[in-house]
């Protein structure tokens, strides 16, 4: 897939995995891998991006005598997810046009 397109989708996929529950790096990768290919090294910049845009926040919690960083979706992040639905409708229309057949 086109790298720019992939980046945009990965941001949304991360937000979607956090939709119901906060999560951590390893778990986020596992969840997303079920629907889309993602590597450990690509996730880090995406998380940083989302944080910089205020779409996720982070907190640290103790897990088995070590600290684990959790990512939580913000209200802005939820809005972004809802907005992506309109994008979906537009993308659908675009692809209907791209793949149209000659009359």
């Amino acid at each position, binding site marked *: 897939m086109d790298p720019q397109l992939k980046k945009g989708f990965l941001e949304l996929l991360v937000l979607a995995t956090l939709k119901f529950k906060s999560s951590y790096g*390893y778990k986020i990768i596992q969840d997303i891998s079920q629907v889309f290919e993602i590597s450990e*090294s690509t996730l*880090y*910049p995406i998380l940083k991006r989302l944080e*910089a*845009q205020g779409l996720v926040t982070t907190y640290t919690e103790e897990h088995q005598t070590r600290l684990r*960083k959790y990512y939580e979706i913000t209200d802005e992040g939820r809005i972004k997810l809802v907005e992506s639905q309109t994008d979906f409708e537009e993308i659908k229309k675009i692809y209907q046009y791209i793949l149209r057949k000659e009359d």
Partner: protein
Amino acid sequence: MRKYEFLYRLDSALESFSKSEREEIIHYYEELIQDAIDNGENEIAFIEKLGSIDKIVRTIKKDDDFVDNVKEKKNFELKQTFDKGVKVLGQLLYIVAIIFIVGFGISITVVGVNGVVAGLINLIATLDARLTVPANLYYIGYTLLHVGLALFGIAFIISLTQGAKTKLELLYEKLTELFNKGGK
């Protein structure tokens, strides 16, 4: 490669990063590897899957520009307010210039009207005195010249003030916008 060797090598490769970011990245990978091990994955195989350290650092660097851009966006808003201030100042200078030029136009008009009146009086005086034709012609010419001057002055003022009204409205809008923004 084992976890500690990987983290050590990664840390060395992150030399150009700030201390806090370096720690954050190291912590991210340390946590990731530990979670994988806890989940029953093979340590060495998992680290191999992470890819080369070079590539990891490149991926982060490539995205850093974006994070910086988002931070700069806040500066951008400040810059916008500043730009608006400059625009308002520019418009104020424009208005001052207009006032000066209109003043110039008014003086031309006044000189013109004055000349018309003087010319007419003198023309009547010369007619009264039954002077020679050239003197009459001189005052007719004098009067007409000043009619032209006065008309030029009036047209000059009208053409200038036509744009000034919209400019004034724009200035008022910009000023209120600027004050509203400053008040926030």
